[in-house]
């Protein structure tokens, strides 16, 4: 296998049917690029949801920490 055969964060549609292949347990898999989308969406949304408590926590701390 050459470097060219090793896609990394390319668009999943380029991999055709391979993009969603089941793993043992009946789960379908996902390419790394889409997983990165999951991670970013989860973190950004969580930050918005938690903004009030994060603000309270930061205000409760001494300045400079």
């Amino acid at each position: 296998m050459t470097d060219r055969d090793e896609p990394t964060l390319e668009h999943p549609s380029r991999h055709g049917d391979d993009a969603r292949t089941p793993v043992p347990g009946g789960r379908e898999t996902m390419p790394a690029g889409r997983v990165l989308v999951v991670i970013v969406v989860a973190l950004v949304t969580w930050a918005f949801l938690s903004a009030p408590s994060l603000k309270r926590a930061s205000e409760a701390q001494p300045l400079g920490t």
Partner: protein
Amino acid sequence: MLFPTVDFAIFFALVFLGHWMFNPKPLPWKLFMIGASYVFYAWWDVDFVWLLAGVSAASQLGVLAVARQRDEMRKRIAMVAGVALTLTPLLYFKYYGFFSLNATNAASSLGLNLGLPLVQLILPVGISFFTFMAISYIVDVYRGHTQVASWIDVFLYLSFFPHLVAGPIVRPDELIPQLRVRRDPRHLDIAGSAWLIVGGLFKKVVVSSFLATTMVDPVFGDPSAHSAIDAVFGILAYAIVIYADFSGYTDIAIGVAKLLGFQFPQNFDRPYSARSLQDFWRRWHITLSRWLRDYLYIPLGGSKRGEIRTYVNIVVTMVLGGLWHGAAWTFVFWGLYHGVGQAIGAWKRVHLPERAESPLMIWSQRLGTFALVCGGWVFFRADSMATAFTLLGRLLLGWTTPTEVVTPLVVGTIALMLALQYAPRGPGLALQGAISRWRPVPIGLAGAAALFVIATLGPQGVAPFIYFQF
């Protein structure tokens, strides 16, 4: 860097991106991952980074010395020297204070003054785990079970951040071959990984923190002030706390590794459904159990040197396993307790006839084993033998004292966590299968909602994982 923190979330998002970008180029990828892992470790205490590097270098030097010898005796000497060199930092940081204090006390009772400096050293995080992995590498090369790896592979094998601070204890032949091949970025098990990470966070941040602060800390902190009912539920709560804490950490570690394309060995398999102490150790901290078996019990002779020697080997292995958890007499006693229990179990298998299995017998064995394990946890958690015996004494004498800390929520949480040990796996797998068919944005939104619920139910700030101190 703790897993359940914003720091780690940002760190992991960046490492995930870099990991898959460098993935096609082995050398830059390895350098990137070593750098990321050392940053992860340095987040605790930058001063101890040299220690991780030193143990890595010592194990590789030991392995090269083993591989260079042709004569079996010289090979063995090189292996022992390599193991001794690798073990030295662990012995010094973890056991010097315990040894010097006890040796000084013993000598002074005989009227002698040893003059040993009494110092309390800070224990570097994860030292017990990466030292055991380093020993595995040296011994496995000596035994011919694994090949000599390159320096860079050894440094990455020992520092790889998902397992670095609290395991699982991954064998060289499980991880080093995975470092040598490029991971396939097209097939990541997002649902399986997310299930492990979110479930692990829930166990640690919600379940473990809640029971630790409401039940375990008050009861173990001042057992004489609590009733027998408090003592019973304090002990049961600690059984759940240590399971939720440690298996939660392991689940997160395995899930994180999965997202990077790595398979880690399973570390827990419903331990509180075990039917004997031996069965318990096949289900609890599995990677430590097999390490103790392969690198301690079998070299001691295992079961090949007669019946009595087998029992002695079991007890010695478990006592040393107890001591691995911490330099204190409570851990020594805990190891002895499990060793004697397992030796009795082994004796029964040899000398008592097998009885036909019935549901009543199976459940009696499960309840009996759980009670024995809980008895051991008293010594594991107590800060001294006196505290442990005071707490056990409350079980006999505290029935007239009113209960103060047992609430319906505490009882319900303990009951739910115990019931989950027997829950069928099907519904969880079906849910993972359904989630895996969602688009990325809905999965991300669901993950955010789960994180929000966990953060809302959990306390402000998260205590370090229990096993970090080991």
